[in-house]
């Protein structure tokens, strides 16, 4: 099956810093989503981005489908950005295959 790899596995930032999270996938995909899992476990949809670039406030994402990777940018990080960020891709069965996540801790 398709493999999804995320890096780095853990990241500690000071408030106000910028960061880039990476997601590599091993095959062509129809759908790619980024999620933020907050400390209570809720998965929050950030981006649907099978290709191209999107921005939402301090967050932006870019997917280069031909090279099989996606990047999530967080600018001016805040403590509320802490949690785990997941990249997930859709395979033919239309279910999501998740990466192992990047655990982000933003310190005040």
């Amino acid at each position: 099956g398709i493999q999804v790899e995320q890096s780095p596995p853990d990241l500690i930032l000071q408030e106000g810093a910028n960061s880039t999270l990476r997601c590599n996938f091993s095959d062509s995909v129809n759908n790619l989503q980024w999620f933020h899992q907050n400390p209570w476990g809720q998965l929050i949809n950030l981006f649907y981005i099978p290709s191209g670039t999107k921005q939402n406030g301090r967050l932006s994402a870019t997917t280069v489908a031909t090279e099989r990777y996606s990047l999530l940018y967080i600018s001016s990080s805040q403590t509320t950005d802490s949690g785990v960020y997941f990249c997930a891709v859709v395979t033919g069965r239309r279910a999501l295959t998740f990466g192992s996540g990047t655990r982000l801790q933003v310190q005040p």
Partner: protein
Amino acid sequence: SQTIHQWPATLVQPVGSPLSLECTVEGTSNPNLYWYRQAAGRGLQLLFYSVGIGQISSEVPQNLSASRPQDRQFILSSKKLLLSDSGFYLCAWSGLGASGRNEQFFGPGTRLTVL
């Protein structure tokens, strides 16, 4: 707007006891529904998915089963829980998101501890 509910929010069960977790979706019809499990705070694993009433596909051989008795209801069950069934169980549905394309949306989850 669409919402997805799961209950209970937390559950502590002894080994060998039965299990029933429920997921319901509001505000949509004929959704695709999914059960995922997350262990140790990392990585979600697909357990079951359903494209319609009574239609269940299993992804991983295990001690669990799923049923879809109604269009917007998805149930995860076990006859006898094992210690390894502990984890965070998330239900999801897929439908049109703000992107205008099919996205998956997740419920709040059930945290299961088997003792």
